[in-house]
């Protein structure tokens, strides 16, 4: 005979998990097999596999229309793209980056021989804090040659403010827009927020292309340099560059990119519906704040990010993640996305606010493998976790 427990059962307490299999989110989206097969048959028939082939050119063309940009340069991945951007702008010494910066950002600077100077992020948006960027530039005049801004979580940082700072101090401004594909600001797709913007077609992004990436710029000279750094194929006008990078995109990557581009609007609206479901489901859960895309932009809605206020919610971010994991819910934070944490020393008082913010966020599942019903279940678990936080906080894991 079953007895009804006095409180909900939790996987972390040994009960059966709410989900029978892991609710992943972020699952690699692949177009329907027949479309995939058809575009690859064409590649094999042409026997043109790489070296700026017809599909890569077509993808560059379509992306430049989408972004309304003079130049789109497709590359093998976004990290190479970031390195190429720094190289093409001939940055030197130091570059300002947000305290929430990925390994990709930090390694790109290291390859280009540059030192990161971290600025604070706003707790409500996770975007660069403009006041702190201004202070850094005022104090470090001379050593800083650029700002590498990050458009975090499918939203946009305060690009106009950064542009005016960059022009005031005569430095370069470029963007890691890996999270911000197809975001629209004031009716126009981003791409021209700075001198160059770098996008990713990694399979974990909403717009995939077997790990490819692309760069947007309206600067003809910069575009020529980028194409010459990428490799001799598709270089266009010869422009002397210091070093080349072998950053070509293959026809396989371009093929997947083109198919994803066709499907992007459906994926985006599906994500929006899920995100809205999360919003309403979590509205009444105190101590948990869902980051909303900034109201100045139309997001790709590819990220569900929550900020935990431990004093209100009743347990820590890490304990909550453990509770969710035990229900087969892939709540997580990515060490790769917050690689900057390892570089911010505890004595850097100014940045501790950002460190606290970064240590208290997590992502929830969203993607092609997640249904509205799944979202309701996840929200229910979160609400119950809040109610029984005192108990769940105490158990030994």
């Amino acid at each position, binding site marked *: 005979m079953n007895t009804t427990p006095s409180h909900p059962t939790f996987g972390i307490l040994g009960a059966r998990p709410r989900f029978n299999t892991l609710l992943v989110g972020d699952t690699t989206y692949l177009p329907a097999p027949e479309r995939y097969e058809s575009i690859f048959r064409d590649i094999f028939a042409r*026997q043109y*596999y*790489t*070296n700026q082939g017809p599909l890569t050119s077509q993808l560059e063309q379509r992306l430049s229309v989408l972004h309304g940009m003079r130049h789109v340069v497709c590359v*093998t*991945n*976004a*990290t*190479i793209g970031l*390195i190429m951007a720094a190289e093409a702008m001939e940055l030197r010494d130091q570059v300002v980056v947000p305290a929430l910066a990925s*390994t*990709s950002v*930090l*390694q790109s600077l*290291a*390859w280009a*021989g540059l030192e990161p100077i971290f600025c604070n992020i706003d707790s409500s948006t996770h975007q660069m804090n403009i006041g702190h960027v201004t202070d850094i530039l005022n104090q470090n005049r001379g050593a800083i040659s650029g700002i590498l801004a990050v458009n975090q979580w499918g939203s946009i940082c305060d690009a106009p403010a950064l542009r005016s700072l960059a022009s005031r101090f005569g430095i370069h401004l470029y963007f890691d827009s890996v999270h911000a594909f197809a975001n629209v600001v004031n009716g126009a797709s981003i791409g021209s927020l700075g001198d160059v913007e770098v996008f990713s077609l990694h*399979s974990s992004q909403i717009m995939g292309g*077997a*790990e490819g990436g692309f760069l947007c710029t309206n600067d003809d000279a910069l575009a020529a340099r980028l194409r010459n750094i990428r490799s001799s194929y598709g270089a266009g006008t010869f422009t*002397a560059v*210091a*070093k*080349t*990078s072998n950053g*070509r995109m*293959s*026809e*396989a*990557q371009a093929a*997947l990119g083109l198919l994803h581009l066709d499907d992007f609007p459906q994926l985006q609206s599906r994500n929006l519906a899920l995100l809205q479901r999360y919003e309403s489901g979590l509205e009444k859960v105190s101590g948990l704040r869902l980051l909303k895309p900034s109201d100045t932009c139309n997001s790709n809605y590819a990220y569900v990010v929550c900020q935990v206020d431990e004093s209100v919610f009743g347990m820590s971010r890490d304990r909550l993640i453990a509770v969710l994991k035990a229900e087969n819910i892939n709540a997580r934070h990515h*060490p*790769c996305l*917050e*690689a900057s*944490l*390892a*570089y911010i020393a505890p004595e850097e008082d100014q940045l501790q606010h950002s460190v606290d913010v970064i240590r208290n966020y997590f992502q929830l599942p969203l993607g092609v493998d997640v249904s509205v019903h799944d979202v309701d279940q996840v929200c229910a678990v979160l609400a119950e976790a809040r109610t029984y936080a005192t108990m769940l906080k105490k158990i030994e894991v």
Partner: protein
Amino acid sequence: MADIAAWVKLVPHYCEIDAHTLGINAETAARCINENTALLLAVHPIVNCCEIDGLVGLAERNNLPLLVDAVESVYETYKGKKIGSFGNAECFSMHASKLINGFEGGYLTTNDPDLAEKLIKMRSMGVLEDGRTIPHGIDATMNDVHAAMALASLLDLPAQVERNRMRYEAYKHMLGSVPGINLLAFDEREQCSYKNIVVRLSAEWPLSRADTLSILHSERVIARPYYSPALHMKRTTYPTIAGDLSLTESLAEQFMLLPCGYFVDDDDTALIVSLLRFIHDHADQITRQLHQK
């Protein structure tokens, strides 16, 4: 290749080649070793291999690491031992133009477990367990679509080498009757891919290589100068060191890479060789007309 050195803040110091193998050897490399030397970066030529055992000994005697660029030597052996097993590591390409077509991409081989572990970390951004990153980490992962293509190519490898051998035999047979064009022979005591068809223009050949190439190109035969200009002749903004490389410079003027690989059939080969024979037989008239233009 020199750019790779520059990316990691090393200074390329070019060494002379061996006239027989067209590659680096222990003697030419030894002349360049000094207290600033950090690494021996050997490259296998595109037909046969450089004397790699001598380089292994040189690296050991000087306590220097040895890295081998073996992009055209996927299938080759040296004294019966597979290329890929020499030095600290060897580097291969899976670019579509190479023996194993993986669209793009490549791979490294090493027998050193510590180096392998480090390379695996570096390939995925160089992230360590504690969140810190090691220098020179980068996104160098191979994606599954490229890997699938490379696996399919790998299945086809023996058949492809056999087709390459047939093409090589056809060129060898037909070029035998063209004076002044000497085909670089594969060393058939070793395992070889027969992939690249490289010829040397001897003193008997009546035209300059530049003129020969421009005639071939105008007939839509895409032959390439092998290797020209030599790498050290290229202007760079980063520092490089090049001593007397007169042998390299002279040899860099004498070789051509003829069309080869999957697209080329026996009829193409016959047409290319007959064109070369025609050029040889009508050299005076062709030269006159070319330079009148």
